[in-house]
Each structure stands twice: as C-alpha cells, then as structure tokens.
C-alpha cells in the first residue's frame, strides 16, 4: 500500500476503534490512536509477512502487542486484514466475545500472546526468536511496548538478554506517547534518556515520528544490524482528537456520547 492508502486506512481504522470503545463503554483510546499509524504500516505496508488464512503458517512474521491496552486498533487491523470478520469488532469487551478487553492468545487468530499485564511481551519475543534461530529460520519478531511499560523491571531483564543473544531478527517498538494511566511518564517516573539507556544495553536505537508514514516506512526498510533494534516512536495519545491531545488524562478517557460526537466530527473532517 502507498502512503495515501495507508492514511485513508488509518482514518477508517480509527473511526472503527472510536465506535468500538464508545459502544463498549470503556477501552484505551489514548494508545489505540497513538499506535494507529505504526500498526497500519506494520500490517499493510508489506513489512510483516502474514497470511490471514494461515495464522499458524511457519513462514509468518510475529507481531506481539505487549501493551495489550492498545488492542482495539490491533483487533480492527486484524479484521481488516482478514483474520476474522469485521462484524465481530463491535462485540469488543462484550460477554461471550473473543475480543477480550485485553488480548488473549488462542481467542482470536493473529493474536500471538496474552497481554494486558505490562512488561511480558519482550521476553516472549526473545523466546520466539531463539526458537526460530534453533530451527535456522529468520522470520521477523516485532514487539510493541508502551513507554510507561518501560518502568517494569522485567523489561530490562529482556533488554539485556536480547542483546546478549544478539537477536538481530528482533525489533522492539516503543510507543512514546509520553503518558501513562497516572499522567505524564516524566512526572510519574522519568524514562529519559531512553535512547541512551537502550544504546548502553547494546541495542540499535532509531527515533522517529510515529504519525509520519514517510518516516515509518523509511525506518522499516532499513537493513538490520547484527543486534536487536528498537524504534522509539514519538506519538501523541488520542492523536486526531484536538480536545484530548496533550492532556495528562489521555490514556483512558471516558468516551461518552458527547465525547463521541465531537471526536467523530473531527475524525471525519480530517482524519
């Protein structure tokens, strides 16, 4: 897909996600919107090799959503990609639905890990990457994490190990939207200098604007080094909803009818 198509698709996905969260009465709009362009690029630019008809294909690439709360966008993307019917999307967070509040492995095709409790995805990504190496395969393993999640100690166990094992087919993406449930990350527990931290652990670090498809595609097409890579993707929580952008409570706003109508108008206008 070309950049303009990716932009159009992102708009569609975000409208779908707004609807899902409004209908469910809960769900994390902040990260769902900050991750939207990156997730669309991973799934629709040809970066991840996937076949929705064969979710257990042995040639597939792996995408692990460690920040499980961004799942509304992942669910919408998987449905648009053809992993399951788009009609299922509006059952998000309903009893009896496979679209759990946070992703559960084996509940839906295309979901690689159970997540929601933070700090566990990277370790599992390392295990998958080591398993692939044992089988002499080089499928990509991509793990998305939130920035607040970097406060979990287990992340740094994994960051150390990925570098130790020189896992060059492992890519981490940090959705650096600057906020967590309690407010701004730098006020809660400062993460900066995040780039230096990863570099000192032996990773290749690339910073980019996570809402700019031009930059995203350029970075994804970079040749991998002989060590793990992390993208620090600078984003904005609830991106595209002007009255939420930059707010400390952007992580999990209540999407009531008034919020919904206002947000809908803005998204439909310029996406």
């Amino acid at each position: 897909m070309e950049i303009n198509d990716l932009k159009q698709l992102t708009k569609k996905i975000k409208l779908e996600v707004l609807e899902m969260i409004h209908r469910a009465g809960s769900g994390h709009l902040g990260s769902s919107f900050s991750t939207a362009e990156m997730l669309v690029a991973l799934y629709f630019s040809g970066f991840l090799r996937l076949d929705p008809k064969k979710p257990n294909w042995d040639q597939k690439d792996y995408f692990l959503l460690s920040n499980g709360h961004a799942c509304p966008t992942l669910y919408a993307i998987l449905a648009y990609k053809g992993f399951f019917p788009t009609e299922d999307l509006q059952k998000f967070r309903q009893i009896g639905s496979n679209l759990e509040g946070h992703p559960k492995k084996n509940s839906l095709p295309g979901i690689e890990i159970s997540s929601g409790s933070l700090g566990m995805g990277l370790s599992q990504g390392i295990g998958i990457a080591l398993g692939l190496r044992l089988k002499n395969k080089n499928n990509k393993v991509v793990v998305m994490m939130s920035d607040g999640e970097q406060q979990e100690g287990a992340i740094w166990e994994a960051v150390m190990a990925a570098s130790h094992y020189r896992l060059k087919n492992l890519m981490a993406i940090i959705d650096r939207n600057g906020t967590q449930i309690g407010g701004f990350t730098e006020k809660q527990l400062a993460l900066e200098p995040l780039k230096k931290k990863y570099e000192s652990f032996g990773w290749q670090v690339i910073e980019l604007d996570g809402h700019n498809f031009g930059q995203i595609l350029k970075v994804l097409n970079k040749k991998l080094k002989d060590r793990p890579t992390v993208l620090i993707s600078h984003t904005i929580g609830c991106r595209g909803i002007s009255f939420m952008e930059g707010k400390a409570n952007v992580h999990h706003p209540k999407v009531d009818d008034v919020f919904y109508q206002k947000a809908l108008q803005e998204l439909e206008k310029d996406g």
Partner: protein
Amino acid sequence: MDKFLISDWQLKEKRALRDAFGEALVEVAKKEKKVIALTADLETSTRLELFHQTFPERFFQVGVAEQNLIGISAGLAMQGFIPFACSFATFITGRAWEQIKICVAANNLPVKIVGSHAGLSHPSDGFTAQATEDLALMQVLPNIKVVYPADFNQTKILIEKITNCNTPIYLRITREPTEVFIKRNSSFTIGEAQILKEGSTATIVSAGPLLAEILKAAAALEKFKIKLEVINLHTIKPLDEKTIIRSLSKTKKLIVVEDHQLFGGLASSIFSSLKNLNFMYKCMSLGINDQFGATAGTYIELLKKFSLDSNSLIKKIKNFVG
C-alpha cells in the same frame, strides 16, 4: 509383597532428587530433540551441567532473571519446543508467578517449571532460599499439573512422563540426598496416587522425600498395632481424591503430612476435596503452620524443628489414633 517399595531401602545410599533430574533430562533429551533447558544462573544447583555439555545449543543461561526465564520459555514453547525452566522453587514460583499465570498457564503451553531446593531441603541458606509456599502458588493456577516425586528413582521415571505431557507442569524437587525407596521399574501414572503401604488404622497422605520419615514411623508404629496406610501423592494436581476416599472409607482417620504451609498445600486441597462423604472421619494435618522456614545445619535438624522427622511423627500419630 511390596509393589512399589524396595525391601531393604533403609540400607541404600541416599540420593538427591535434583541429581535424578539432571541425569534423566539428558536421557530424555537424547530421544526428544525438542527438549530445551534454561536456568536463571543456577546451572550447577539445578544439575544442568551435563545437559549443557551434551546439548550446548539447547541450553540457555538467562542470568539472575526469573521473570525473563519464564517469558523466554513460553516463547520457545510457542515455537514447538519443550522448555524446562529451572531455578530454586521459591524464586521461580514466587518472582515469576505472574509470568507463569499469563504466559504459560493461560496459554496452556507445555513449559516445565522446575523448582529445586523445595520444602525444607535447603537447610543452611535459611528461609529466603526455602520454598514452603510454592505448591500453593502453583496449584491455584488453571491448566498446570503439579508433581512432587518421592525419591531419586521416582524422579527419574517422572521426567520422561512430564516431557510427554502436553501441558504446563510444575515439578517440585529437592536438594538434600534422601532415602531411595521406590522401585526403579515400578510403573505409575500422573494423577493416580500410589499406596506405598497398606494398613487399616489410619490413612496417611504425603508427598516427596518426607515419605521416608513416614515409612520409618509407620514401621515403628506396627509394634503398637497401629497399621498406617501410606499414600504417595506424587501428583498434587490433579488430585486423586478417589484413592484417598477409598482408603479413608476403610480407616476413617486421615493424616496429611507436608513440607509446605498447611494453608494452600496438600492439606488444604485434600480436605476441600472431601465433600459429600457418607461417613464421619477424624483428621490431622502436620506441616508448616503459618511460619517461615529457618536456617539449620542439617536437613534432619530442620525436620525436627517443624516436628516432621519420624520420631516426632510417631508421637503425634500415637496421640491421634489413641
């Protein structure tokens, strides 16, 4: 007469469960290429040196990082491997509990969680290295089977059985050399308790090397016409309540002995499973009663401290049945 017991077991050399684990894992890994071993810095303590030497490419040292140990093991299991994640019982079940819940148990992945130095079997390092809560932490999780072999020989047989079991397993093993009393060629099934000794006075249920103390006590109590029926609950979950109820319907007296907290361990799960019985029974549980472990020079000293050695058991059982 004895189906499971070695006749002169008290004369045999003591051997540690962890040694059996290390040897058996190499044997199993020769046949089953998907077996992987991982440890959080405790290669020697969990007896993985031979595995490491024999299969260097299938061994992963993850450093002192139990949470990562479990996450990586889950990822390897997703790739079709059979990972054995090894550490001290207290570290792996305690520090990495939530990873075990979410990455392993909820996904029903065949990760084998191996907790060594369990119970009171690591006397000298004190309570921070001892695991007296691990069974509670593991048996509360759906999908996980919990096994605790009685001795060296049973550990050897069990490793192959759990390798072939396509579910998560918690394998509890111990550090100190203890009595070898189960016959090497005795067959048993995961989920089916073993009656090591038949008796009519009282049913006594336990698991792990503590069974040697119980067998010694049972032999001594024969003089007083107290005939204990000794049940080896090598599989703690799923619980074989049928075998226990069958024995209890005969004896009407139940004693549970464990090297674990009484709350959350064998006693808790056994007593809560005995429902809707059409007879009354008397019961007693012996174990660690809402206390932490402690340092001791030897294993037997620590057993005495918690009244779990054979002499203490003899006294308590005499009072109970008398």
